[in-house]
């Protein structure tokens, strides 16, 4: 699936919910299901500090695609993180660097991205794209 196909699928999933509880329960569930990041990757280097919650982001490349693993100490952020990983992981550095992430806005979760200082999510997106760019320049 392309980045946009995954985004569209998420938008469709969320269209089924008609109240905030089911929407957030779904996010919480995704957070719970996200495989925990191995402790060895929960390093100071991989941490993206928000004012309130922390996000860890680990990236690896097999030469072609970039894979992300991530974690957070707050469960809703972790759910959102898992969506970002799902959307961006497994694509080429170039695709990641150029991705237009529209799904958060369409799902009505953009306020979480706007809360730069409190949850580190916006910085995480930036960091994922930076990895994309970095690997892209390594490849070329």
């Amino acid at each position, binding site marked *: 699936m392309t980045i946009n196909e995954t985004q569209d699928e998420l938008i469709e999933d969320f269209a089924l919910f008609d109240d905030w*509880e089911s929407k*957030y329960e779904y996010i919480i569930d995704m957070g719970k299901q996200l495989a925990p990041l191995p402790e060895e990757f929960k390093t100071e280097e991989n941490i993206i500090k928000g*004012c*309130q919650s922390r996000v860890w982001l680990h990236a690896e490349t097999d030469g072609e695609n970039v894979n992300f693993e991530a974690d957070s*100490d*707050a*469960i*809703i952020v972790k759910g959102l993180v898992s969506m970002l990983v799902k959307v961006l992981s497994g694509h080429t550095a170039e695709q990641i660097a150029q991705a237009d992430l529209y799904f958060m806005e369409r799902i009505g979760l953009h306020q*979480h991205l706007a809360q730069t200082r409190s949850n580190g999510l916006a910085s995480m997106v930036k960091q994922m794209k930076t990895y994309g760019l970095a690997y892209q320049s390594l490849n070329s």
Partner: protein
Amino acid sequence: MQYQARENMISETYTIPQLDMGQIRSDFPILDQIVNGKPLVYFDNAATTQKPRQVIEALAGYYERTNANIHRGIHHLAEKATAEFEASRRRIQNFINARLPEEVIFTYGTTDGINLVAQSYGRTFLQEGDEIIISTMEHHSNIVPWQMLCEEKGCVLRIIPINDAGELLMDEYEKMLSEKTKFVSVVHVSNALGTINPVAEIIKKAHEVGAKVLIDGAQATSHIDIDVQALDCDFYAFSLHKLYGPTGMGVLYGKEAILNAMPPYRGGGEMIKEVTFEKTTYNELPYKFEAGTPNIADVVAAKTAINYVENLGKEAIADYEHHLLRYATEALSSIEGLKIVGTAKEKVSVISFLMDGIHHQDIGVLLDQQGIAIRTGHHCTQPLMHRFGIPGTSRASFAVYNTTEEIDHLVAGLLKVKKMLG
């Protein structure tokens, strides 16, 4: 009614203070709105209080009928604006019972006032090896300016420890005091815990060793009657936006003799007597510390906020908020797995809490979905959070316009959070 049921649950009996809540709530237009489909419950009052219609109208009225630059114009509007600006100074002088109007210096807020003292008094009168005492429960605004001063001057920062209830260990404080102590800067009411500190005693003890004292009153002025002469503090800093007044303005009170001995710390217009390229002479108090065009409109509207508070009555407000505090403490404690952080005997209407296994940010997000605004995080008191070994808390803080019904909503909201995350 659930409200009634809870009302009866309060174990000790006491008379519930009577305020005209219908009137008070209608004075605050912002409260009457729907947030995320629910009626707004605003419990983030320690961050900033909402403004009554009277203050909003005073602000608009100033721009509609009075606006001019002050102190230098000779025309009608300039005189009117100057008169209103100076009337606010006297109103605030009276509110905190300062001896003189010129002991009231207008600032941008508490932070600005503390920086003024650290930069002007501190850099002039403190020297290498001098000790500055603050406490574990300070807001970053009352830590960082002193750290900057210590770095520059080689002073030593000492920290009063606290007990598990969130009360200062006064014995430890007394042991710290010596002839080396030159300055004590302590918070009157903790924004993260609600603790009311025994500042009168702190000031007295500091004066016995010849130290000067600043009190950070940011969280105190809306809850407690302030009498700077009775306290005998040397400086008292607060922000109007936490006192039902406008943002971007605050007050630094200082004793006249000390302020007179201090050099100005910002240069510019308004603060000078005469400027030549060879030498500039400074204006008198309070203008010496008010360089540039001040925040005239907000200063003018500030007196309306003070009038509002005094018309309700400081004591009536304190009694009512105390009622809210008792009610909320009891109601929140009934939630299994909820632990209140900050259980001092003397407290204002602020409750910080933790919920077992639930991150405070998740609590904040899910309450927001239910129209309930609380604060989560470290509350700009990271060293205090370290003391408790926690990254942060959830904090509900109550103002005079809040009700026990809203507290019931909070409790229901938290039960829902627990259910969703359990």
